[in-house]
């Protein structure tokens, strides 16, 4: 919590990123108060340009683009959140285990991690999506994305733990009789937490990008509103040819805004992690 307050105070990019994401979160919450069902068609007049009644216009299926977008953002973030939770969960646990236990554990886990790193992810995802086409729900997509994105993070945690383990203060703590659990939670966690935050954000970026990519190829669950499927259906119904640009503009702008928001936050976190700027900030505080 203190870290968050620090970040908002000292990092402009984190501040702007937080503002953008709070707008996104507002949209997400609004989806629960939508006057229409997510897949309800012909609910509103078709092909209306943005106006006072329909803020982002309507599409050829008689759906309100604004409320579609709120559902899209919600589902996209669910996919990404699921992917991040699974990916980082596996990554953190494996990284900590191979870092702290070392020896045989480390050798076995490292070779598994190394083989996962060299697997090209997008082609594999496309392959999986083609194979389970029709049966893949957006929850399933999130799980698959998560299962493919833990190898690099786990390497990062392992490296961090290996370095922390060799520091003098760790050895002094061990000598003083401190329990391993306490050393991990009290002495090492402050080093890991900022790293984890930055990692979560970059995980969101990866998962959102993958979701949109797969949906544009028509490979994900096409019946669920996500940012990606909105772009796909917009193209499918010739939004560009028929000059109904708003149908496409809304999801594209939304995806850019979400990505930029997360990127600004990760930028702020990176500055926060840099020991030199951290020093200046600590001095400014005291």
């Amino acid at each position, binding site marked *: 919590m203190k870290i968050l307050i620090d970040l908002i105070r000292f990092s402009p990019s984190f501040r702007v990123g937080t503002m953008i994401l709070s707008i996104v979160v507002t949209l997400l919450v609004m989806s629960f108060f939508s006057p229409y069902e997510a897949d309800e068609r012909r609910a509103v007049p078709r092909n209306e340009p943005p106006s006072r009644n329909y803020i982002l216009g309507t599409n050829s299926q008689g759906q309100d683009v604004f409320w579609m977008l709120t559902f899209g953002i919600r589902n996209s973030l669910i996919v990404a959140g699921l992917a991040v939770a699974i990916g980082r969960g596996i990554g953190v646990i494996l990284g900590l285990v191979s870092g702290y236990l070392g020896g045989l554990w480390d050798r076995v886990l490292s070779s598994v991690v190394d083989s996962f790193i060299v697997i090209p992810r997008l082609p594999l995802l496309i392959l999986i999506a083609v194979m389970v086409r029709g049966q893949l729900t957006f929850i399933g997509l999130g799980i698959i994305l998560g299962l493919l994105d833990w190898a690099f993070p786990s390497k990062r945690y392992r490296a961090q733990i290996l370095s922390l383990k060799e520091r003098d203060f760790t050895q002094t703590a061990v000598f003083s*009789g401190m329990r391993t659990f306490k050393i991990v939670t009290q002495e090492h966690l402050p080093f890991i937490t900022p790293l984890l935050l930055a990692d979560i954000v970059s995980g969101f970026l990866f998962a959102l990008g993958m979701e949109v990519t797969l949906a544009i190829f028509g490979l994900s669950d096409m019946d669920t509103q996500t940012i990606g499927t909105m772009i796909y259906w917009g193209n499918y119904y010739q939004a560009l040819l028929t000059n109904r640009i708003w149908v496409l503009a809304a999801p594209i702008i939304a995806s850019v805004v979400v990505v930029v928001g997360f990127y600004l936050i990760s930028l702020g976190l990176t500055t926060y992690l840099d020991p030199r700027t951290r020093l200046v900030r600590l001095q400014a505080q005291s």
Partner: protein
Amino acid sequence: MKVTTPNVTTQNMTTIVSAKDLQAYYVTNAYGVARTVKAVDNISIDIQQGEVYGLAGESGCGKSTLLKVLLGDIQPPLTVLGGSVHYQLDGELQDAATMTVEDKRDIRWRQVSYIPQGSMHVLNPVRRIQDTFHDFITTHKQTTKRESKEMTQSYLRDLGLPEKVMRSYPHQLSGGMRQRVTIALATILWPKLIFADEPTTALDVVVQRGVIQLLRDIQHKENSTVVLITHDLGVHANLADRIGVLYAGKLVEEAATKTILKSPQHPYTKYLINSLPSFAGHSAKESIPGRPPALDKPPQGCRFHPRCPLAISKCEHEEPPMLELAPGHRAACHLLTSSSA
């Protein structure tokens, strides 16, 4: 392991830690190349309660290894091949070799403490000093954050350290202050036995003085025992009651500080003392010819003989025994046998 009673000396003091015929080697076997570094070879030391015992010797002579063994902090490749270490704590005799991990965990920091070498990285850089103190205190005592804070505060006040260091991060402190905070951290639970590994290294003389003063204050207050390791004989002269001189993994001479400084007996000690600057003479200081031997292949016989100007043929083959020259003055040199015989 057989428990032997440690020697009780005539000065009516109890031995707090005693090592007997200690042999600790670094044994490595990497890619078929076996190497044995004889870092501690047949060292016997009795350290009395309430004294400051100085261990002197040049780099690589086994000072820190001896300390590790005395602390019972033995991790491969360091292997104890022979000898024993006994602690006498709370009137109870404990053998370091048979102590369980839990026993060791219990006495460490509370009874036997350690001031690590190089204070730069001993304190956790992302935690405030008071949090670090809290972590170490709660390892052995159930205290709330407020209690440990008060404890730290009054202890730092006693030691004359500014209270504002408690809210600082380690990087905000100067080197000398950091060293003093480290010493305070090591002694916060009033240990009876304190091992200090090069506490004044990398500090300038003015700061050294402050650190020495602090160590002495702590030692006086609780009459605790300090084992001081440094290559700096000036610090030893200031602080230590007795000095043991190590050379190439062996104890070559041991005596009260005054005796060592006034009348050293072993040729190596003589060289060490003669190299100290004095007010009287301005003669050029003579250095010992040659270099200390590599400990994986120490010289036969007396380990000092290749560099010793007084070496006789006996020195090349036979290891000199430890001789009691006077009460409390021991040295290992063949010349002393032949002159006294």
